[in-house]
């Protein structure tokens, strides 16, 4: 189908964009790559009255590398991450993830900020950035605030982004040289949305380990016991499977059916195996 009628504005600065968002008299949506929003408009699932195009705001393309982290502007595309055209705090995890995300013609336009702000439960970045202990920086009428990704996404397409805020950047801690990671995306066709995602990050030098399940009927699900177990380098597959099962059982609000439980267990087991040396 075709998108419904809509107004369109392209502000020059982030402050102007936030002003437009805060004072719109109709439902205003921010558009960057538009790779989900325009599809949703074409399907008539979304019909905003006003689009505020932030794709060209220079502030949102900024990438900065600090001693302990990299900040990636919201409008950095998946393709830029895939091609390593921007600093990579994750020692290869993020480029690897980007290369599995949809299709190249989507990755050239779609942005990391858009993926986080929409928080499709099956999307890659919310789960991967939660596993990396990243934060998002939100810019709104009353200034900036930062939130951990694990707090930012609250449910299916639900986040703590306020109506007058724009996701400005993601701040991703740098992995140390002996960090290891695992990533498994289960789907039936290359590039489609995941049926199950598992991301494992372990960084002994920083005393950090985390296992996250994505496409988990809600926000990215941190497998707490499995995260602790991973730090010990689990050798016994049965014990590992039992721990993952326990974590999935405790997430009773996700209402996994048997098939989904099995997919998430298999994805997590395979991802953990990737970090064992």
């Amino acid at each position, binding site marked *: *189908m*075709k*998108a*419904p*009628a*809509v*107004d*369109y504005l*392209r502000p020059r600065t982030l402050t102007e964009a936030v002003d437009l968002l805060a004072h719109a008299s109709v439902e205003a949506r921010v*558009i960057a790559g*538009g*790779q989900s929003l*325009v*599809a949703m*408009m*074409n*399907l008539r699932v979304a019909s905003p009255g006003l*689009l505020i*195009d932030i*794709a060209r705001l220079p502030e949102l393309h900024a990438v900065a590398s600090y001693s302990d982290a990299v900040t990636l502007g919201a409008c950095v595309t998946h*393709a830029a991450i895939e091609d390593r055209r921007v600093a990579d705090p994750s020692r290869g995890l993020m480029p690897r993830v980007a290369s599995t995300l*949809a*299709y*190249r*013609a*989507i990755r*050239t*336009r779609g942005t990391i900020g858009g993926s986080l702000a929409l928080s499709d439960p099956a999307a890659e970045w919310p789960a991967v950035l939660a596993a990396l202990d990243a934060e998002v920086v939100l810019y709104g009428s009353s200034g900036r605030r930062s939130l951990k990704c694990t707090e930012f996404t609250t449910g299916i397409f639900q986040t703590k982004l306020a109506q007058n805020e724009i996701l400005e950047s993601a701040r991703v801690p740098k992995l140390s040289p002996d960090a290891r990671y695992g990533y498994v995306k289960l789907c039936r*066709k*290359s*590039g*489609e949305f995941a049926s199950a995602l598992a991301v494992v990050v372990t960084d002994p030098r920083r005393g950090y380990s985390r296992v996250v399940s994505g496409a988990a009927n809600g926000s990215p699900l941190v497998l707490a016991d499995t995260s602790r177990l991973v730090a010990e380098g689990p050798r016994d597959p049965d014990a590992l499977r039992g721990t993952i099962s326990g974590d999935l059982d405790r997430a009773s609000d996700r209402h996994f059916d048997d098939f989904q439980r099995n997919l998430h267990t298999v994805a997590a087991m395979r991802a953990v195996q990737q970090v064992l040396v």
Partner: protein
Amino acid sequence: MSMIHVRINGSEVADDVPPRLSLADFLRERRNLTGTHLGCEHGVCGACTVLVDGEPARSCLMLAVACDDRSVETIEGFAGDPVVAALRRTFHERHALQCGYCTPAMLITARDLILRKRAGSEREIRDGLAGNICRCTGYTNIVTAIAEAAQEIGKEAPNAQ
């Protein structure tokens, strides 16, 4: 309505467009460039793939108004392109199309794979084509044609300036 200036296949074009108009409909209905095809209109089938600022993009998922000051290449714009020339020939020789509906976007996607050196094996080509659906061929001949064109371009490349 919004005034946009777009460079399409090398020519500057100005037009007044409603914001809801997709780039695909702009190309087909305002510019008569009907080689860009629309299948699903939600980014899954890949038939509408064009180049925006040199990179492949879904023209059904881009609003024409967002293409202001950008350059767009459609299948009609590759007349002098050596990679597309090689692909056209191998698609012909290998019978890599039947109805032809997906073909313009297949050529544009294949050209991008070859130029990014992502057409080195059957697996790589199949992965790279995952976002372009063909409902006739079963892909075998398309993959073969792209592999042959990639080899040919690869052989020429060391001598290219």
